[in-house]
C-alpha cells in the first residue's frame, strides 16, 4: 500500500482529529435485542454493530453435538447497506475468515465444558462499517455472551493498532486502514493476559512490531473498562451510585 497524502498533521492530529493514542468514541448498550439470551449494541467510531447470543440450546443438526462440551458457532456478517458500495449479502470469503477468527478469539474465554451436548450461537451483524469492525464485533460479542449468563474466564476486548505516516497509532479508522501502512487487530483477555486474536497486514520493522502490539494491548485494556461499565450499567444501574454503595 502506497500512501498518497499525510494522514497525521503537523499538530499530531489524525484525519478525525484524534491523537495517536486516542480511541474512537465507544458506546456499548447491553440487552438491546429482546428475544436473544444475551445481546449488545456497539458504536465504535462510525461502526454500528449488533451482537446477539442464543444458547446454550439444543444443537441442530444433532450430529454436530459433542458429548463433553458445547459447540460454539459464530457468524460475522455485513449488511448490504453497511458499506460505501453495496455489499453482496452472500457471505464473502472475508466474512468466512472473520467468522472463524472471531470464534477462535472468543472460545478461550468460554467454559464450554460446562454445557455438554449444547450449542451457543453468536451472531454479529455489521449495520454500518468503519475500520476495525472485527474488533468492534468481538468486543460486542463478548459483552453479549456475558449478558447471556454464559460461564466465562474473562471478557475478550479487542482493538487494533497500525502504522500511519510511519507512526504507530491506536485504533485505526477506515481512511487510515485503506490509505495507511499497516493494520494489526488484536483481541485480548486482560485478566488472564492472553492474546486470542492477532492479525497483521502491512509492513512493520521489528521495533515497530513490538510497539504496535503493546499499543494495541493498551487499547484492549481501555475497551475492557468500557465493556465492564456497560455490563455494570445494565445489572447494577448507575455506576457512581454503585461505587457509593460499595464504599458504605
Amino acid at each position, binding site marked *: 500500500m502506497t500512501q498518497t497524502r499525510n494522514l497525521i498533521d503537523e499538530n499530531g492530529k489524525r484525519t478525525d482529529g484524534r491523537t495517536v493514542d486516542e480511541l474512537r468514541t465507544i458506546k456499548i448498550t447491553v440487552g438491546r435485542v429482546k428475544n436473544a439470551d444475551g445481546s449488545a449494541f456497539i458504536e465504535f467510531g462510525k461502526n454500528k454493530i449488533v451482537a446477539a447470543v442464543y444458547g446454550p440450546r439444543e444443537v441442530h443438526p444433532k450430529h*454436530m453435538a*459433542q458429548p463433553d462440551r458445547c*459447540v*460454539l*458457532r*459464530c*457468524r460475522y456478517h455485513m449488511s448490504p447497506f453497511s458499506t460505501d*458500495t453495496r455489499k453482496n449479502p452472500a457471505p464473502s*470469503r*472475508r466474512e*468466512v*475468515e472473520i*467468522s*472463524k*477468527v*472471531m*470464534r*477462535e478469539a472468543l*472460545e*478461550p474465554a468460554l467454559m*464450554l465444558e460446562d454445557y455438554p451436548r449444547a450449542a451457543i*450461537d453468536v451472531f454479529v451483524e455489521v449495520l454500518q462499517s468503519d475500520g476495525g469492525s472485527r474488533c468492534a464485533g468481538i468486543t460486542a460479542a463478548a459483552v453479549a455472551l456475558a449478558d447471556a449468563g454464559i460461564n466465562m474466564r474473562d471478557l475478550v476486548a479487542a482493538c487494533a493498532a497500525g502504522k500511519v505516516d510511519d507512526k504507530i497509532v491506536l485504533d485505526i479508522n477506515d481512511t487510515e486502514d485503506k490509505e495507511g501502512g499497516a493494520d*494489526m487487530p488484536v483481541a485480548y*483477555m486482560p485478566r*488472564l*493476559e*492472553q*492474546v*486470542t*486474536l*492477532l*492479525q*497483521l*497486514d*502491512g*509492513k*512493520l*520493522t*521489528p521495533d*515497530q*512490531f*513490538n510497539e504496535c*502490539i*503493546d499499543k494495541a*494491548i493498551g487499547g484492549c485494556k481501555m475497551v475492557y473498562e468500557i465493556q465492564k461499565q456497560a455490563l455494570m450499567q445494565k445489572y447494577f444501574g448507575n455506576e457512581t451510585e454503585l461505587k457509593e454503595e460499595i464504599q458504605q
Partner: protein
Amino acid sequence: MSASKRSTIIVEHLRKQQMWDALARGKRLDGRDFNEQRPLEIELDVIKKANGSARVKLGDSEVVAGVKVETGEPFEGLENKGALIVSAEVLPTASPHVEPGPPDEDVVELARVVDRGVRESEMIDLDQLVLVPGKTVYIIFVDCSVVNADGNLFDATSYAVVASLLSAKLPVFEMQDDKVVDTGNMQPMPITTVPVSITAARIGDYVLIDPNSEEEACMDARITITTADEGFCAIQKGFTGSFTVDQIKKAAETARIKGEAVRARLKELTGKNG
C-alpha cells in the same frame, strides 16, 4: 457460520503422553528441536504449461503451485495496478479426511493467509503490470494444490507460491488497435522482495515451529508470521487457544531468523537477489 469442531486426526492418549514427555525434555517425537523445520525440498518449473511453477515438500506435506498470466480489468480502487490472485485448494488426494467439494473455512483461511503474505510484502511490483491505465492490466493467478497434507500447510503453500513466482516468466503483451496481443516474448517478473512465512504451534507452554499433523492435532494455538527483507508484513493467529505477548514476541524473533534462512534458499535456487 463458523462452528467449533474436533480435530479429525485422533492422537492416542499414550502417544500424547509421549509427546508431552518429549517436549519436557526439549525434544519432539520426530527428534527435531523446537526451532527446527522439517526438510524442505523445492523443485522449480515442474509444470511446463504454466508461466511459472514449483513443487514444495515440507516434510511430508506436498504442494504444487502454478502461475498463469492473463490480462483483464483492474480491481476497483486499484485502477493503476496489475492484479495478483492467490488461491489454494486441498485436494482429496491429500488425506483420508478431505472430501471433494467447496472449500471449508480452514481452506479459505489457508488461501487468504498465503495471499496476504505475498500481497502485503509487495513482492510483485504491480505498478509495472499496467497496459492501459484503468482499463487493461496484467492479472497474475497463482493457484496451489495441496497434494499431500502432513501439517503446516500454511508454510508449504506459501513457499510454493513464492518459488513459483520467482521462477515465473511474464509474457510480453502489447496493445494493438485496442486489442491485447501476445508478442511471444518473455520478460522477468518484477520482483521487489521475498516473503517467507514461519508457522509455530503452542502445545501447553511450548512453542514449536513447523508442526506436523500429529502435533497440530495436539496444539492449543497456532501463529503464522510472514517476514520480507525489511521486517514483518503479515500475521495470523489461528486455532482456538491463546498466546501470551511474550510468546508472540519470541515467535516473531524466531520467524525472522528462520525466515532469513528460507529466504536465502529461495533466492539461491531461483538466482534472484531481491
